[in-house]
């Protein structure tokens, strides 16, 4: 089931995470794991706590209780950029690019972690700085090719059509060279043909040994790409398993379609 290697090694483990916003329980005692090389779909009705879970994992929110471990290291208390240093990079539910920078610059910004030049070296204009800049530019071009928006390099990020902005987001995230990518509704707003080409892109990302955790409402997409699916409802995990099992799970169906009059 896991993409690479025989024995599935746990990459990310979410242990008893609980998040309260004042009196509201957004996520309650959430526990699941993602294995190395796996694609895991995280689904659930609106307000189930999926984005909250993302925010907690990537350091944008502090959990009230519980622990997050990635490759054996605790992520609790790390700030977002430190989580990125650890290899976890996310995208956002609402399209999020650097709108007033060109597409090419967007990728260069994403490549931040791949450069090493300090401000001093830059100020002194050491020869290594120029070489590094050249290397980053080459990488940026390669990444634009990879996601298929190379022809847009000179346009402003905010001027791209919606579907391509979503691709740009993924390219920015990939630029940070994650070992695990967290995608928050990447195909929302895409048309069916864009969605299926995104699914092919996801396969190629996976071929780069990137583990993927995916939040998505498009069921055909989630069921098509995920090795495993975790279902959240009202902050709790109600089901977990291979897509085929999830589709037939009565609890999941109830969560999405509602219970009959008798149960209400």
């Amino acid at each position, binding site marked *: 089931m896991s993409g690479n290697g025989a024995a599935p090694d746990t990459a990310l483990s979410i242990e008893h995470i609980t998040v309260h916003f004042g009196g509201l329980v957004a996520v309650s005692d959430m526990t699941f794991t993602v294995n190395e090389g796996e694609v895991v779909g995280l689904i659930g009705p609106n307000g189930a706590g999926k984005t909250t879970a993302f925010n907690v994992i990537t350091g944008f929110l502090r959990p009230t209780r519980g622990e997050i471990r990635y490759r054996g290291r605790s992520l609790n208390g790390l*700030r977002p950029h430190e989580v990125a240093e650890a290899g976890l990079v996310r995208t956002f539910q609402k399209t999020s690019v650097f709108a007033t920078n060109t597409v090419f610059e967007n990728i260069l910004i994403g490549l931040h972690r791949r450069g090493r030049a300090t*401000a001093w070296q830059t100020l002194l204009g050491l020869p290594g700085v120029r070489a590094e800049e050249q290397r980053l530019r080459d990488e940026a071009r390669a990444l634009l090719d990879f996601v298929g928006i190379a022809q847009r390099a000179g346009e402003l990020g905010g001027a791209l059509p919606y579907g391509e902005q979503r691709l740009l987001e993924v390219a920015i995230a990939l630029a940070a060279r994650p070992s695990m990518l967290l995608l928050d509704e990447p195909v929302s707003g895409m048309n069916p043909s864009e969605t299926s080409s995104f699914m092919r892109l996801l396969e190629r990302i996976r071929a780069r040994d990137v583990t993927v955790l995916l939040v998505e409402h498009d069921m055909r997409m989630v069921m098509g790409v995920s090795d495993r699916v975790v279902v959240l409802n009202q902050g709790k995990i109600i089901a977990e398993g291979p897509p085929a099992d999830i589709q037939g799970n009565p609890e999941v169906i109830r969560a999405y379609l509602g219970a009959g009059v008798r149960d209400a």
Partner: protein
Amino acid sequence: MIDLLRWLWLAFLLSVPIWLGDQYYLHILITTGIFTIAAMSLNLLLGFTGQLSLGHVAFFGIGAYTSALLSLGFDLELAEGYTFVLAPKPVWFAFLCGVLVAGFFGWVIGKISFKVRGAYFVIVTISFAEVVRLVALNWVDLTEGPMALSNIPPFTLAVPGLWEQTLYRKAPNYYLMLAIAILSYLIVRRLVLSRTGRAMIALRENEPLATSVGIDVTRYLVLAAVVSAAMAGAAGGLYAHYVRIVDPDVFLFIYTVTMVIMVITGGKGTLAGPVVGGLFFGILPVLLRTIAEPEAQWIIYGVFMIVIVYFLPDGIVPAVRGWVESLQSGRPTPEPAALTGTAAAERKAD
């Protein structure tokens, strides 16, 4: 083409003292230049990281006072019977210390700016400048308070043992100012056209996305604040040793406002913006003095400001760039004006 213009501009700046006979106008240019350096430093913070520091004059004043005090020497009674005496130091040493001390305070403010953002940061910086002004006003033992520090020695250029010149006259001071202004410009340019500058712009444009790809907010805000403050401190030091008198009025809020006006009208977040804005609003008051009644001068000044901000909301430089680009490509619509200087420069380099 751009390169040629750049060299012509430099040659023009270098030639000014040769053909400008009137020392008064040269004086205006020197003070304008000093303010332009301060505006460039503010632009690094305001234009590139998007943090509005309305206390920027504090760094200018700290640089001026530190440099003045160290070059004059001072004695300070720290405790009963113990007086700390500091002998006068060479001007260049005092100047460097002024830059460092201003940079240190920039570091403190940068650290704070991580905790408080937006309106709160603005308030913190205003308060900071006001506190520093009150210290300068009331710590009479050290700063002479409203009596001002006077007789500050001017800069001295020297080749040790061979040749020495003290810069009493305007022309050498002009060249010194120009040298530091060019150096400041180059520092800002190097920084913003690099990975460091991209990180700053990314934080300004979309902080959550920037942090999610591993950009450390604190690190780059603090870096920008330190460089910016040190540069403003250098401008302050220049001012102190040129005007040769410093009083607590250097901390007045109006000077910060002037710097902000220079940056905004010139084009914040562009390299040339503060230079254009600095020259424009440095020279405009003097120009108005010769052509308008005193009552009308500041009204015209205000009208100019409103007109620029109203019709060119992104500043003069982005607007001009937009016109030039639309002329070159024959398109009627100007480029989206929020484009940064970096954006354009990098596209050219591409």
